[in-house]
């Protein structure tokens, strides 16, 4: 029964792993893997000496780091606020609406963002103009671009985590709240001493699982929103791999960068799963 699945995974996931040797070759498609020259660590040397590699690495970690932190903090806050809402209709309505952006692709959202943030015709800049401020070229300015990335990504994805946290909150034992109230706790104290600790297992779980993503700054989003003018602040590892490999046809170099990313991700993801197992009793299977 497992045979088709095993076979397909072998072809499309394991065989590419063998392709890692390309990282050590000066690969030319015509010559193939067997015929291309061996350069050992030459590709890695080349990458480390590329003028923008520091910037790309920093951008990747910076953007991904901000996304991880914001992606944890914002949903927790919203979930706590949402929990205070008594009106069931509004509660459900809010949940439905905030989950919606998750299902739109970055093509759609990218197109919308490009339109809204356009320096000449976009509605955000028109609003700024009405308030007497100068228009900002959000998607073209190195000062703004990373933050636009993080803010729009959080906007897109916070619905998912919020719903998970809300579910965790509703499973907190109500007698804990009653005890807290009897001890004179106001709403803020209750949130700090009952709600947050009650959510802790889920928070820890989602936090540790997101650790594996420190190098995933979001290729689909960045690719659809970036342009040459923001390479300095917006170029990430994945977009670099794409340009080197598929546009410049420097297959060996691109594979080398990819290998580096895969190795670091392997370590990070394994550590994160191990932590999740130890701290939150999370087992994959």
């Amino acid at each position, binding site marked *: 029964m497992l045979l088709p699945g095993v076979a*397909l995974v072998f072809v499309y996931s394991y065989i590419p792993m063998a392709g890692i040797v390309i990282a050590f070759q000066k690969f030319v498609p015509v010559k193939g893997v067997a015929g291309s020259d061996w350069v050992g660590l030459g590709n890695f040397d080349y990458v480390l000496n590329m003028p923008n590699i520091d910037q790309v690495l920093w951008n990747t970690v910076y953007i991904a780091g901000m996304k991880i932190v914001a992606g944890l903090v914002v949903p927790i806050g919203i979930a706590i606020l949402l929990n205070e809402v008594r009106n069931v209709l509004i509660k459900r309505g809010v949940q439905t609406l905030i989950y919606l952006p998750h299902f739109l692709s970055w093509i759609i959202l990218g197109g919308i963002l490009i339109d809204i943030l356009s320096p000449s*015709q976009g509605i955000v800049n028109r609003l700024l103009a009405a308030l007497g401020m100068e228009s900002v070229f959000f998607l073209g300015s190195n000062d703004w671009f990373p933050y636009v990335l993080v803010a729009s990504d959080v906007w897109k994805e916070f619905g998912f985590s919020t719903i998970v946290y809300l579910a965790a909150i509703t499973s907190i034992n109500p007698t804990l709240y009653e005890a807290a109230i009897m001890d004179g706790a106001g709403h803020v104290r209750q949130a700090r001493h009952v709600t947050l600790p009650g959510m802790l297992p889920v928070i820890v779980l989602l936090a540790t699982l997101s650790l594996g993503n420190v190098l995933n700054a979001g290729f689909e989003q960045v690719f659809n929103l970036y342009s040459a003018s923001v390479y300095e602040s917006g170029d990430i590892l994945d977009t670099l791999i794409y340009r080197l490999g*598929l546009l410049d046809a420097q297959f060996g170099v691109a594979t080398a960068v990819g290998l580096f990313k895969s190795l670091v991700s392997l370590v990070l993801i394994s550590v994160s799963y191990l932590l999740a197992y130890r701290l939150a009793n999370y087992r994959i299977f």
Partner: protein
Amino acid sequence: MKTVSLSRRLFIAGNYAFLIALSVSCLFPLVHVLAISFSSSAAASAGKVVLWPVDFTLASYEFILQNDAFIRAFGVTLQRVALGFSLNLALTLLCAYPLSREQKHFRYRTAYAWYFVITILFGGGLIPWYLTVKETGLLDSVWALVIPGAVPVFNVILMLNFIRGLPAEISESAFMDGAGHWTVLWRIVVPLSMPVIATVSLFTLVGHWNAWFDGLILMNFPERYPLSTYLQLMVISSSTLNFSGVSLREVAEISQRTTRAAQIFLGALPILLVYPFLQRFFVKGIVLGSVKA
């Protein structure tokens, strides 16, 4: 009789306002783009359009829908969604069921499970993957969009955990009555797993509908692009639409901006239509997958 303090009342009012504003912000960009798509180009460039179309016109949509490339791309997406979904679902079930069996019934279960999970932890990277797809001769066919991603390991894990949660007695009594594995899978596990199947199906469908990168790098001819890849070129990479052959009246009413807005909206439409009805399943799905009871 509980008296509610003023600060609490203010908080509640503020909370409602904030949350409602937040939800509206999730809807506003779509409504804004929708309004632009129905407006005339002059009104759009003048910035008069906020939430409601100005100078209502269907010209942008007429133009888009007459465009062969758009319709063709739509067709390719429909093809890949249908094929990809069926294949993904079948394989997910076929993999999850054996992997859900206990170690004592299926000796190499853990080994096989790790075989699949390792592919999540580590990969060969973009270039080797591309070359593999090329060498297996799938480039330029719709199968390139369907076969490489045929085994969605995350979904397999989700489903196998769910199947493990089903009471063992049911399948055990079926085995004792002489049922084979296929029978148990088809007649017992599948009907009982409908919640997770619904969730997995929906995520798979949405995933295939939105996937654009594989279309971009695996197809050499624009005629073979799925809709999202086509939109990527039109809307983001700023290819310009060919406006020749358009009547003078229409030229006055449409522009790159309004036609782009129309394309964005048409691309989002299927998801928007389906979402309200299936939203319950999506929410249940998250809770199923993340919070262990």
